[in-house]
């Protein structure tokens, strides 16, 4: 006879309703600042959350308005589009209606607040299921909604805030463990799917939980399964297989993604992405009372990643569950399962390599990261630790309950709730997004096809989220934010060419790409030192305002809006390295393939050929690129490549191109190599080498070489710093560094050997006063023995900034390094550093020798561009600078050539030949989008003047 299961008794139900009421109240408390304006006040901090808002908006835009899959968005990284990694499709799908009606902020808030409510409910159900004690369930349910992990994740990460599905999956798994019905297993599978669709982190956690469950159930606890009829077993196995297929599919997806997402290096994982076990006992850094204390213990502590406090109280409640025999008898499976999960999750969350007195202990997290690198923040395993602790604590708590009277237990419960709430004391931030920066407000009213580019550029930086969020307001296509994977792999390199908006190639690319407006942020709007420095370095407002291709159209308090001018007159382009091939011209099969696959507009494609030419031809050979609208062929001046298609095609930018191999030192120091090809309309097409594309062309008038200005450059009389200096004394563990002379040398008898097992070891030498007018050729030999790459830096005193540290090649054997450096005009003197790094996981040894820093003096003067060849000798120019607005040039030329004045293009610059005859303004060209250039057709020996009127 079928007997109805007894329903929970009334008092039990009362507690359940009380719990729901309290949980609802708690959710309101957590989200209280939002309720003033739910559609404009965002729960959480202003960083990754803004990216999620863009995602919510874009999913709505793609599915409801554009009727396309949201996986490729043409709104960002214009022309290429970005592949949007929808790691949390469930959130985007279920919030579609609210996003469409109330906007993305509303949806975001609802999703995050719901996660508090549902996670608490899930924990209540689990504890109730296991202990039948609803008071215990109530208290732990409330506390679980408020764990520092959950609070910190929900401040920034939409996907990670959604902990509830995994909790419900565990709930149904535990139900299934007690009562092996198909319904319970269906519950497991449903919530497994929801978990997978929410977060790849939680999907991996779910996989670990299910795997652990299966292992325990099929080994130690296999007897339990024997009591069930065959049909049920078949169902169970079927459902498990179904779960496994889903998981395998997902893991396959992870591996597919593995190569595409940036994977952090191990040292980053060591220092930022993993935890130390005692972090589990540190209060959250934004705890109202204990936060300051917590911060003082771990300076540099990142709130969103490392707030994982388990609560002392809960830990001390959890441990007895494992020790008291009686609890073990009643909950044999549960105890073993969560003890296992606790230890495994703890091991996976810890720093992958522990350095114990010079010996390295590799923890499971190290191997796990190697297999599943997509789980790059191992700290998040703390969620499983916390889940286990809560369940074990629930068992002890309920066990103690049996020894107390109802009243005493109620008092005890309240005390525990009080302590727990104090430990987890919630403190939240929210962001008011109601105020839109006026530049974006203005942009919103521009025509829909408007295309923009924003400076400063954030190639890969969390602050791209802010620009992305405001796109949901202004809805204009932007060239920024290649942060995600673009459809074309070299696109980020191209963007780096545009990073500095004062360079000629940036201006040229704007025109090529069809940028309408350049928006320049003038405030140092992020209170971050490195970022402020970045902005100052990259943006010189005066220079920008004088930019020949930009017209200031709007000036807002915190940003300037420039319109990109149409080309005022015909331009010529000296090809540099890299080379851009516009108007559908294409050099690569790969690029053509991509064109076929994507639905992006074809008209404005271009290509970044630098890497391809490097791959295809040997260094230093001349490569000619013949461009055709339909096909593109490589040719070269050496016999390996034949010149087959010589048809120049029409429109603006088609040309014969000559690309030189990588620039060598002799090119920098006077032996300028120049190539000319012919293009349509009878114009000369020029290529030349630049000293540095950012510095412009230079002619060397004096190569006064003062020789090596470094004393003891080969470490013959000892090291610069005997024994080396510990440059990271704050790193953990006693310093194990060594700097010594080595007999393995390229110059003299000794080289400097820098060895370290944990800290950063460095040697340095202060240079004599440097001349900001001079150029310095820095060179040295280095040899990588083992560990991390060799590494050097040059610090400029006076401006207190350095040339960026350079990590050198790890190829075996001695290598040579050479670089031409132009010091900052305000620098007074420099400090030369060599380093060896170790993250504490391996020993590093590097050698350095034969260090040189040679000083050269250069000046900028007019130069000639000409076609190289036996029939076309180099025109000889002897230039004198008479004043900043006048140059005198003696010329000896046997063929027409281009005279280049490396100054900003201005119509007022004019060239007069000897008899007062002026060079026609028609022959005055903008070279490379910025500088002055004249086609001089007169042959012979004569004198000319370049004068600014």
């Amino acid at each position, binding site marked *: 006879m079928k007997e109805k299961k007894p329903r929970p008794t009334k008092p039990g139900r009362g507690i359940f309703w009380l719990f729901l009421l309290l949980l609802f109240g708690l959710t309101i408390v957590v989200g209280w600042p939002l309720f003033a304006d739910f559609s404009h006040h965002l729960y959480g901090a202003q960083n990754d959350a803004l990216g999620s808002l863009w995602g919510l908006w874009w999913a709505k835009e793609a599915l409801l308005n554009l009727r396309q899959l949201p996986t490729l968005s043409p709104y960002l990284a214009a022309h290429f589009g970005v592949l949007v990694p929808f790691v949390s499709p469930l959130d985007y799908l279920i919030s579609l209606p609210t996003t469409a009606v109330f906007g993305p902020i509303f949806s975001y808030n609802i999703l995050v607040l719901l996660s508090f409510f549902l996670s608490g409910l899930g924990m209540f159900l689990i504890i109730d299921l296991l202990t039948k004690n609803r008071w215990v369930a109530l208290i732990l349910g409330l506390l679980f909604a408020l764990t520092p992990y959950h609070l910190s994740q929900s401040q920034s990460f939409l996907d990670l805030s959604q902990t509830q599905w995994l909790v419900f999956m565990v709930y149904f798994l535990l139900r299934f463990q007690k009562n092996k019905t198909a319904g319970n297993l269906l519950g497991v599978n449903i919530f497994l799917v929801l978990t997978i669709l929410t977060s790849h982190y939680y999907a991996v956690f779910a996989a670990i939980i299910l795997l652990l469950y299966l292992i325990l159930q099929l080994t130690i606890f296999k007897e339990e399964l024997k009591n069930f009829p065959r049909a049920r077993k078949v169902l169970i196995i079927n459902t498990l297989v179904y779960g496994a297929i889903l998981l395998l599919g997902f893991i396959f997806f992870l591996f597919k993604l593995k190569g595409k997402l940036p994977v952090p290096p191990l040292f980053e994982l060591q220092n930022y992405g993993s935890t130390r076990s005692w972090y589990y006992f540190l209060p959250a850094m934004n705890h109202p009372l204990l936060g300051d204390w917590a911060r003082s*213990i771990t300076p540099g502590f990142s709130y969103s990643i490392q707030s994982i406090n388990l609560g002392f109280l809960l830990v001390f409640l959890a441990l007895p569950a494992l020790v008291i025999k009686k609890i073990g008898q009643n909950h044999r499976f549960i105890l*073993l399962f969560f003890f296992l999960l606790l230890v495994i999750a703890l*091991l996976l969350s810890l720093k992958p390599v522990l350095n114990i007195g010079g010996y390295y202990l590799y923890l499971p997290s190290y191997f796990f990261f190697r297999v599943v690198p997509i789980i790059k923040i191992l700290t998040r395993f703390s969620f499983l630790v916390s889940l286990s602790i809560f369940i074990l604590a629930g068992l002890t708590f309920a066990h103690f309950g049996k020894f107390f009277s109802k009243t005493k237990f109620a008092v005890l419960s309240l005390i525990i709730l009080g302590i727990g709430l104090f430990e987890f004391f919630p403190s939240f931030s929210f962001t008011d997004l109601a105020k839109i920066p006026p530049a974006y407000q203005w942009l919103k009213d521009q025509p829909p096809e408007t295309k923009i580019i924003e400076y400063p550029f954030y190639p890969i930086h969390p602050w791209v989220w802010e620009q992305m969020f405001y796109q949901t307001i202004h809805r204009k296509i932007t060239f920024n934010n290649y942060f995600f994977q673009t459809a074309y792999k070299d696109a980020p390199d191209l963007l780096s060419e545009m990073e500095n908006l004062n360079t000629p190639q940036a201006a040229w690319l704007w025109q090529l790409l069809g940028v309408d407006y350049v928006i320049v942020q003038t405030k140092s709007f992020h209170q971050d030192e490195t970022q402020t420095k970045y902005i100052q370095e990259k943006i010189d407002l005066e220079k920008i305002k004088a930019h020949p291709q930009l017209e200031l159209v709007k000036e807002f308090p915190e940003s300037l809006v420039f319109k990109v001018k149409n080309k005022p007159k015909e331009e010529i382009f000296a090809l540099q390295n890299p080379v851009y091939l516009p108007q559908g011209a294409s050099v690569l099969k790969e690029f053509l393939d991509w064109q076929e696959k994507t639905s992006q507009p074809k008209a404005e494609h271009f290509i970044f050929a630098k890497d391809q030419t490097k791959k295809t031809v040997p260094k230093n050979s001349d490569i000619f690129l013949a461009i055709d609208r339909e096909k593109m062929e490589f040719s070269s001046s050496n016999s390996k490549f034949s010149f087959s298609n010589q048809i120049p095609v029409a429109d603006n930018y088609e040309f014969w191109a000559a690309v030189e191999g990588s620039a060598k030192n002799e090119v920098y120091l006077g032996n300028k190599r120049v190539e000319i090809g012919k293009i349509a309309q009878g114009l000369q097409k020029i290529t030349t080498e630049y000293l540095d594309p950012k510095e412009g062309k230079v002619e060397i008038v004096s190569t006064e070489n003062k020789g090596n200005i470094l004393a003891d450059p080969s470490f013959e009389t000892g090291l610069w710093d005997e024994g080396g200096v510990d440059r990271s004394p704050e790193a953990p563990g006693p310093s194990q560094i060594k700097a010594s002379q080595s007999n393995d040398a390229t110059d003299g008898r000794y080289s400097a050997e820098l060895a370290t097992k944990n800290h950063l070891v460095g040697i340095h030498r202060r240079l004599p006063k440097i001349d900001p007018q001079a150029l310095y050729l820095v060179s040295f030999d280095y040899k990588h023995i083992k560990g991390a790459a060799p590494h050097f830096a040059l610090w400029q005193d006076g401006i207190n900034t350095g040339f960026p540290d350079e990590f050198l090649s790890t190829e075996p054997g001695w290598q040579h390094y050479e670089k031409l450096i132009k010091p900052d005009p305000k620098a007074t003197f420099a400090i030369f550093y060599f380093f060896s790094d170790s993250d504490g996981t391996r020993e590093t040894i590097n050698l350095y020798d034969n260090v040189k820093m040679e000083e050269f003096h250069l000046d900028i003067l007019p130069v000639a561009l000409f076609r190289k060849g036996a029939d076309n000798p180099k025109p000889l120019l002897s230039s004198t600078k008479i004043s900043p607005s006048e140059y005198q040039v003696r010329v000896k030329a046997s063929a027409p050539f281009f005279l280049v004045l490396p100054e900003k293009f201005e119509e007022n610059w004019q060239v007069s030949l000897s008899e007062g005859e002026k060079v026609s303004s028609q022959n005055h060209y903008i070279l490379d989008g910025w500088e002055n250039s004249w086609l001089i057709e007169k042959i012979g020996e004569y004198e000319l003047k370049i004068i600014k009127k």
Partner: protein
Amino acid sequence: MKKSFFLSQIFLAGAGFLIFLVLLALLFKKVKLLQYFDPAIVVLLVLALIFRMIFEIKRKDD
């Protein structure tokens, strides 16, 4: 069987004591001491888990 459960209890008690020490180290800001907590807690918990597993497996056989 009982021996393994007892050993598991001992190691867990050791872990509990360590956590208490961590509380003290945090209170007195002895951050340098805390770095030794990682290997210690890992060893204690793993040993406790191993003996608990042995206990559970043997118990099934009885």
